[in-house]
């Protein structure tokens, strides 16, 4: 056996680890990218969760009670798109908008990182126009007290909801009527046009109410059946209010009503403070682990520490590349996985000592140690992996961070035990026979 075989593989690993370390460290990486004239695509930022950069997480419940079961999926998708366009109007970087099923309910979750005026944002999301048409039934004067329209318009009528709503509106624009007053022209899609046609046919010479955000804005009389899917709304608009309404329509009317059921807002300074404390705590923890294994295992502890450092920079690099949204719990999950990663190294080392004692050569002992330690490494991580997958599947966004970093961390630790620790052992361990 050659004694000083040049460990090319190990050197490659170490170079890659140094590169990964530079990549992980945000203050340096962008400078390197620009110095080396690399394409901007190499410039990656850490993606930090709301609890670290500050921002708001808004949870809306979607009211699907008026929607038939078959239409629900498309309505919910449409709603998500509409809210996304709305949110993009107020310029938050990378807003996250997604649907979460909770039991038989659907929730819409909006994450706005780094938003300054959450009050305004909530207002803008909530104010998106909810347009619908309602049939009007005349009632004897006595029965009208409970009218939902409140003080507005005609108290002697009862409004019956129809299924013609803003979800069928494809476009809207401002125009002016014969008297020079601003009106809003809306166009329905084919399906909406059909419903509108039926509705107007049914209500010739009757009132048809147009509701915006549950308020009647106009209650015209239908003169004849209207085909072609165009309607004109002539509420008491000023040019400005007509223009605003059109903007809101074109961003999309909400296809179903939503209700804000929870709000979590973290200030930017609290987020930054948490981030600093967590990183500092994590570094101390890492140091303690290294001190312990060097103190307990001596020389091997040193090798294991080196493997651990390489493991940590690679894993962080993967978090940054994917990118995984780092939350407080997510960082905690990663720190936890560092502590757990020691185990695989210890297992291999213990086996190797046994094999060396049996008088095997260094190369054979390392091979044998890995072969025999592998089932234990695999088995001892499997239950944690199972739990991480279940948590990822079931949990909400803050917890998902923990599940994901734990999952990736544990998988990486298994990988690093095989690749990194093995190469390090091949370099550092001497043949017992040569001693």
């Amino acid at each position, binding site marked *: 056996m050659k004694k000083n075989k040049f460990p090319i593989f190990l050197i490659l690993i170490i170079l890659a680890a140094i590169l990964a370390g530079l990549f992980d460290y945000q203050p340096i990486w962008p400078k390197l990218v620009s110095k080396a004239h690399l394409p901007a695509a190499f410039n990656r930022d850490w993606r930090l969760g709301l609890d670290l950069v500050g921002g708001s997480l808004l949870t809306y419940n979607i009211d699907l009670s008026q929607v038939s079961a078959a239409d629900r999926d498309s309505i919910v998708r449409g709603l998500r798109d509409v809210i996304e366009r709305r949110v993009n109007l107020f310029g938050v970087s990378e807003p996250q908008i997604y649907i979460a099923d909770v039991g038989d309910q659907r929730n819409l979750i909006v994450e706005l990182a780094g938003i300054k005026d959450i009050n305004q944002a909530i207002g803008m999301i909530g104010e998106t126009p909810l347009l619908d048409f309602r049939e009007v039934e005349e009632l004897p004067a006595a029965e009208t007290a409970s009218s939902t329209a409140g003080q507005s318009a005609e108290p002697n009528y009862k409004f019956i909801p129809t299924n013609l709503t803003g979800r069928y509106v494809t476009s809207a624009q401002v125009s002016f009527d014969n008297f020079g007053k601003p009106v809003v022209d809306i166009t329905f899609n084919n399906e909406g046009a059909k419903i509108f046609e039926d509705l107007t046919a049914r209500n010739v010479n009757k009132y048809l109410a147009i509701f915006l955000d549950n308020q009647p804005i106009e209650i015209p009389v239908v003169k004849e059946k209207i085909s072609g899917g165009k309607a004109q709304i002539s509420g008491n608009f000023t040019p400005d209010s007509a223009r605003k309404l059109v903007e809101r329509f074109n961003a999309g009317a909400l296809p179903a009503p939503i209700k804000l059921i*929870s709000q979590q807002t973290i200030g930017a300074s609290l987020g930054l403070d948490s981030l600093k404390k967590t990183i500092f705590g994590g570094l101390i923890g890492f140091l303690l682990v290294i001190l312990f294994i060097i103190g307990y295992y001596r020389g091997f502890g040193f090798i294991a520490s080196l493997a651990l450092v390489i493991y940590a920079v690679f894993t962080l690099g993967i978090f940054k590349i994917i990118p995984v949204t780092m939350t407080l719990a997510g960082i905690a999950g990663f720190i936890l996985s560092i502590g757990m990663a*020691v185990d695989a190294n210890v297992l291999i080392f213990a086996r190797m000592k046994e094999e060396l004692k049996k008088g095997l050569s260094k190369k054979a002992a390392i091979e044998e140690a890995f072969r025999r330690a592998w089932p234990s490494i695999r088995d001892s991580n499997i*239950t944690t992996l199972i739990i991480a997958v279940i948590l990822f599947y*079931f949990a909400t966004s803050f917890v998902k961070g923990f599940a994901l970093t734990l999952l990736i961390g544990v998988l990486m630790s298994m990988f690093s035990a095989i690749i990194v620790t093995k190469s390090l052992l091949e370099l550092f361990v001497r043949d017992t026979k040569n001693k």
Partner: protein
Amino acid sequence: MNIDIIKHRNIFFIFSGILILASIFAFFFFGVKQGIDLAGGTNWQIQIENSAIKESDLRPVLDELTGNSNLTIKSLPEGNLLIKLPSISEEDHQKYLQALQEKFGKIKEPSFESIGPTVGQELKNRFIWAFLLGLLSIMLYVAWAFRKVSYPVKSWKYGVIVVLSGFHDIIVPVGLMTFLGWRQGIEIDTNFIVALMFILGYSVNDTIVVFDRIRENLILTHNKGNFDFAATINSAVRQTFARSVNTSLTTVLAIAPLYFIGPLSLKYFILTLMLGIIVGSYSSIFIASPLLYVWHPIKNKNKVK
């Protein structure tokens, strides 16, 4: 490590029995204080620029504003005040904030969380499912991993004991948290449940390591014909002891600083994790292995002295 674990098993059983009873007692006697993510409500953290203003100045104003005398105000480090209310709308939030600022001057809001009561119910349902699924998959996994061993202990019995010891490891942190809830108003939240799930997976794996060794040694000794279950278990525990302890120790060491210097919102998450890991390591050595012996179907035939 030269303790005869099987011989002294009753000491460990009694110790764990006391821990579990105390935890169950705490759970039912003190009750669980649920965080707003589970029960709904508002956590509103504010920082008043004028540091002379104390909880007691704030309380009457807030009582009047909200019309609720049940709200709690807690002092946090660095001049922060935590106001706990039932869940409120954003309009009310702005109204209260404005009123407070008119009265006390500039106020910063490090965080504001208001969660409706229905959110928590759904979350709890989800976690119950996640928990059951976790238990089931672990049981199946253990039964599968031990499928080839059927003598002298049936493989499903390993699975049952693994899950039992998992319960042991979860009940103790629950007891501690309910106790802390009673003493200091610490609440159980999503993070706590996540920590319990983690403990389940982690401590079970510790138990599997010990059982794995027992299984391996059983095959060896059984083939030689001189079968002694107690001695087999003892030697397996001895062989895995250092690894078991060290693995748990490095994991605890890695996260322990976060308990002391990490952010407040992680503090009890980390505490739960640490306690669970330590208890898990203890139970896989001192509880799970003796349980296997006690449940051993032919122990009378091979009485060990």
